[in-house]
């Protein structure tokens, strides 16, 4: 059974269409990414899939349950880490987890054990009995992630899970998201602004812009569709034409452009071919001054699909008010 099937899903707010007729299938056990700029409709989509909001048109099946007909069964098997803060700051970390587990009717013994497990995972064991009020932003985020995992969800929604975390913690969370997915087979739907995160984690990425999916593929294919890898080689200015001729013979070379003393070769698997190129050039008695292999980045792919660079950390009004709320709660 597919984990999630979206069927012509649309959500409009007045004249604004936040999610525009999206149909897509997420397979069971997949780590699926939604990548898009601010206001693309990612959170709106997640809200609908987690039964917090209703679509204007269309429907979706979560593990076979219809979002209209069967929301309570859906809530039982999903976990979610919200983009915006959602902890009870007047309770301790442990109490937050405990109440969460009680809402899922987890037996007492299992609850205690599981709380310790998830706390250890996010490195909060020694702070768990402090009020969340006294937690830093990163600690709160980690606690929210721990809470999302408490009840062993089969499908996990992560709305910008590593927003505001330091690089070290982010790496650790990535590692863990991967483990959850690979070892426990949990289906993960993740939204992110961070290209690196999508690239590193996701099996498939949907690039979403203005409520529409503009591209959907594996990270590798998304990048490869943009353009080939490039090998840049710098040689003596006088030898450029000679070397160019030499490389033209090489199998797999698609295109060669030259500037003064630099030769750019389009070829797939650039890093593999680079040593062969150098060997070939040296064997003919030429000198190589520098050489590099460049892979297209997901960022380039993103720009080519959406027409803009991803607006990361730019102070949109919404982000500012979010930061404000986080501060207010602190």
């Amino acid at each position, binding site marked *: 059974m597919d984990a999630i099937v979206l069927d012509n899903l649309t959500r409009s707010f007045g004249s604004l269409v936040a999610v525009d007729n999206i149909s897509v299938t997420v397979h069971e056990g997949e780590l699926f990414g939604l990548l898009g700029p601010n206001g693309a409709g990612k959170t709106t989509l997640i809200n609908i899939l987690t039964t*917090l909001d209703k679509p204007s048109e269309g429907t979706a099946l979560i593990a076979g349950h219809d979002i209209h007909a069967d929301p309570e069964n859906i809530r039982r098997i999903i976990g*979610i880490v919200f983009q915006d803060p959602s902890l009870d700051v007047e309770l301790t970390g442990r109490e937050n987890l405990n*109440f*969460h587990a009680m*809402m899922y*009717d987890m037996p007492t013994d299992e609850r205690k054990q599981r709380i310790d497990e998830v706390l250890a995972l996010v490195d909060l064991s020694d702070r768990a009995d402090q009020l969340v009020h006294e937690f830093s932003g990163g600690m709160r985020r980690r606690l929210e992630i721990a809470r999302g995992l408490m009840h062993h969800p089969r499908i996990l929604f992560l709305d910008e899970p590593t927003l505001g975390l330091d690089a070290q913690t982010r790496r650790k969370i990535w590692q863990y998201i991967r483990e959850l997915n690979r070892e426990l087979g949990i289906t993960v739907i993740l939204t992110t602004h961070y290209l690196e995160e999508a690239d590193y984690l996701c099996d498939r990425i949907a690039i979403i812009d203005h409520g529409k999916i503009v591209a959907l593929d594996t990270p590798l294919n998304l990048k490869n569709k943009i353009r080939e890898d490039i090998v840049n080689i710098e040689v003596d200015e006088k030898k450029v034409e000679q070397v160019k001729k030499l490389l033209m013979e090489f199998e797999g070379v698609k295109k060669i452009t030259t500037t003064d003393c630099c030769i750019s070769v389009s070829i797939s698997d650039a890093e593999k071919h680079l040593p062969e190129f150098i060997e070939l050039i040296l064997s003919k008695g030429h000198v190589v001054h520098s050489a590099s292999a460049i892979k297209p980045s997901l960022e380039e792919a993103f720009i080519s699909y959406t027409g803009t660079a991803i607006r990361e950390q730019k102070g949109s009004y919404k982000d500012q008010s979010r930061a404000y709320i986080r501060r207010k*709660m602190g």
Partner: protein
Amino acid sequence: MIDVKAIYVLWLREMIKFSRTKFRIFNAIAMPLFMLIFLGFGFRQINIPGIPPDIGYFEYFVPGIIGMTLLFTASMVGLSVLSERQFGFLKEIMVTPASRVSIMLGRTLGGATTAILQAVIIIIIAMVMSFQIMGFAQLIASLFVMLLISVIFISMGLILASRLRDVHDYYNITNFLLFPIFLLSGAMFPIQNLPLGIPFFSVFNPLTYGVDAIRGLLIGVSALPIITDCIVLIVTATIMVLLSAYAFTNGYRI
């Protein structure tokens, strides 16, 4: 549909918070207590028409102040749900398997318990200051009336909260509503003393029946038979809970 565990969890959460916010409790009972002391004792010697001569104003006023405490505390539940929505915690509850109705009931019972606890604290303080109750059984019965009053006004707040987005709007609307409800309930003096026409509105005010029933039970004086008061309260509470359940299931969007 009704999930006892979830109701219990939400109730427990309120209790933990209540026990932690000592200042808030103090704050909640300070105002009624001041009024009780200043007005109750200040008007002690004044003869107000409609109050039986053998009942002092202080005695008469205690049930009124209890009604006021219940009313104001109950109205805070809607505010707290609304601010939870604004600060995101409501989402966390709404995404658990608990049904909307259970969530609504958990909040209602948690709020009612805190309101009643505060009322009991006020009764105890009043008793220290010479207030005499009819008996223990009547006191217990009055707790049931207090539950009905709390449920009615908590439901009112939850319905209001389901229609609003902003904490300030809620605050303004309840401020506008609470004082008329309080003043028209006969909490301070018999409503017959008010100018023509105004007592008419008191008939539609649930707090009128609540305060009257508490008076009947605690000091043995009531305008209507206690049983009549209770029937009106039970019917109103039932309707309000149903409306609140409807509002909560259909109104709350994130």
